[in-house]
């Protein structure tokens, strides 16, 4: 083949490549717009169907406020607890080789594959009135199921894997050397964790925390089982939305849904920011 032929052949290949690339891009956009963006837009449209005033007015209902407050409190608690446990778990499984490590790793991922409803039921079986510990708890006047502690437990269960899952691969990649360097410089275990390991994995940690937050805010299934749907007491935002919708209060339902969607969009944006600031090289230089 002469040089001209070769160039022409390459050119036509590039054109073909370009066309298929464009098709893929268009498909991706259509899917994203149709499946992801359109529903969110619809939620906002429905909420604002009778005007902004009507949408805002729906938040003046004390049950709505209670739902928002409960959701935020549960989310803050769940994120705080699961961030701490997630860091510990990720650290444990990456830095130490111990027997049962594989089993532990698989167990951490269990909440991702188990249906949240099953998880909720498990809590009810444990702590409900008819459950194993129910009578004892009743004697001590401790309410777990159909009360905020149960909601917290359910939320903790479903959001457990995220911090560990995002942190573990990065800690694996970081390797032992930075920590060894810290240790020959005299740093102890905690000092090393706070000064070297976690800062080196900051973006992954932020990502995991935000994923946990998003999941905690929106969790329906597990919470639905343990909550008992008591408006003003044990209804989180997602549960309250369902109650409103089933009661044909569609503006109020969609307003609440829009607020939840706003939280979600905020988290996605924050996650983008956290991911955008990549750590310098791989934390080692």
């Amino acid at each position: 083949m002469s040089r001209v032929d070769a160039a022409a052949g390459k050119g036509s290949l590039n054109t073909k490549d370009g066309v298929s690339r464009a098709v893929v891009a268009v498909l991706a956009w259509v899917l994203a717009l149709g499946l992801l963006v359109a529903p969110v837009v619809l939620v906002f449209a429905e909420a604002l169907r009778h005007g902004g005033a009507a949408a805002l007015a729906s938040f003046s209902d004390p049950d709505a406020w209670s739902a928002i407050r409960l959701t935020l409190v549960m989310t803050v608690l769940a994120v705080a607890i699961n961030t701490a446990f997630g860091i510990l778990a990720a650290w444990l499984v990456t830095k130490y080789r111990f027997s049962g490590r594989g089993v532990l790793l698989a167990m951490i991922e269990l909440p991702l594959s188990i249906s949240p409803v099953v998880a909720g039921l498990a809590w009810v079986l444990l702590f409900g009135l008819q459950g194993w510990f129910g009578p004892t708890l009743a004697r001590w006047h401790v309410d777990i199921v159909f009360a905020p502690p149960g909601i917290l437990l359910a939320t903790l269960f479903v959001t457990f894997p995220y911090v560990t899952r995002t942190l573990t691969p990065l800690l694996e990649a970081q390797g032992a050397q930075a920590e060894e360097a810290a240790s020959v410089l005299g740093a102890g275990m905690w000092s090393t964790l706070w000064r070297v390991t976690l800062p080196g994995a900051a973006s992954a940690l932020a990502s995991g925390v935000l994923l946990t937050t998003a999941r905690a805010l929106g969790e329906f299934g597990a919470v639905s089982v343990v909550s008992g749907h008591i408006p003003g007491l044990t209804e989180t935002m997602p549960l309250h939305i369902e109650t409103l919708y089933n009661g044909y209060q569609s503006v109020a339902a969609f307003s609440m849904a829009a607020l939840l969607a706003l939280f979600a969009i905020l988290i996605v944006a924050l996650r983008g920011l956290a991911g955008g600031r990549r750590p310098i090289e791989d934390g080692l230089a």
Partner: protein
Amino acid sequence: MSVRLDAISRRNAAGGLILDDVSLEIETGEFVALVGPSGAGKTSLLRVIAGLDAQSGGTVEIDGRDMSALPARARGLGFVFQNYALFGHLSVAANIAFGLRVLPRSLRPSRSEIASRVDELLDLMQLPGRGRDFPAQLSGGQRQRVALARALATRPPVLLLDEPFGALDPMVRKSIRTWLRDLHDKLGLTTILVTHDQQEALEIADRLAVMADGQLVQAGAPDLLEARPATSFVMDFLGDTVRIEGAVRGGVFEPEPAFALPVAVNVSDGPATLMIRPHDIDLVTGPAVLTPLATHGGFARYRVGDAVTVHVPVHVADRVPVTGAALDLGRGHLFRSGKSINTI
């Protein structure tokens, strides 16, 4: 401070012996290079000294104190990693200050003292004003000096260096080598350097410890190793060698190749291998065909017969016989089963 290694052994996770009964004493102020091919156990030994890996047997004493049970962070030694292992999320100054900041409160210098120590080290490392930079913004040579500054910040008496020049280009390597040796002398350090580059070790160290297969083969000053290599491996490792097989009969080493002259020796009869540096071979008139090769580094090089290369200093090259040559091996070393049997 002196470092004393007594019968150090270490097994890897699979049970293989990666350090085998290594004993070595390093005196205060000495610069020792651990040399050997990769897999010889140099880095393993350094990590055992630092406390990063535990030995399976033997003791590490520093200044007469048994360190064997202490973790790395309690040993107070300076360690520079092969890839420097700088903390990428910390500035150069914060990297250097790290060892001071993690000291227990009672021993920790004040903020201003730490800052002035960092400035002092930046000057010493010829990196003035670079404290605010991040490691990723520095060149390889600069990172290496930051790693060194970080290791020296707490004034450790012993400095351990794991292939510190490995990632640098040859020009930088040469200059930083001399500079490091000066630093060692100036600060009165005791330094142990791991390198696979014998040339580097010969240039920088007071003493070389040659390792192979997890064992210490021979330790000594460069001229001692050159004059009396304990094994053929040491001889081989420290420079170019020509190897001539033969046998000793009645006090004479008789080489197999016809173009090599017999050498009078003082060892018992039996097979033997003579090893010699190419520049230690003298050419005399003889039967072998002499093929001139390229001149390089002040040596005229010749091929004698079909295998042996001889290096002749250029200023005596006119004395090389032109008609045909034989090898005078009088300055070689004789080995039997790899062990030195005589210096001729």
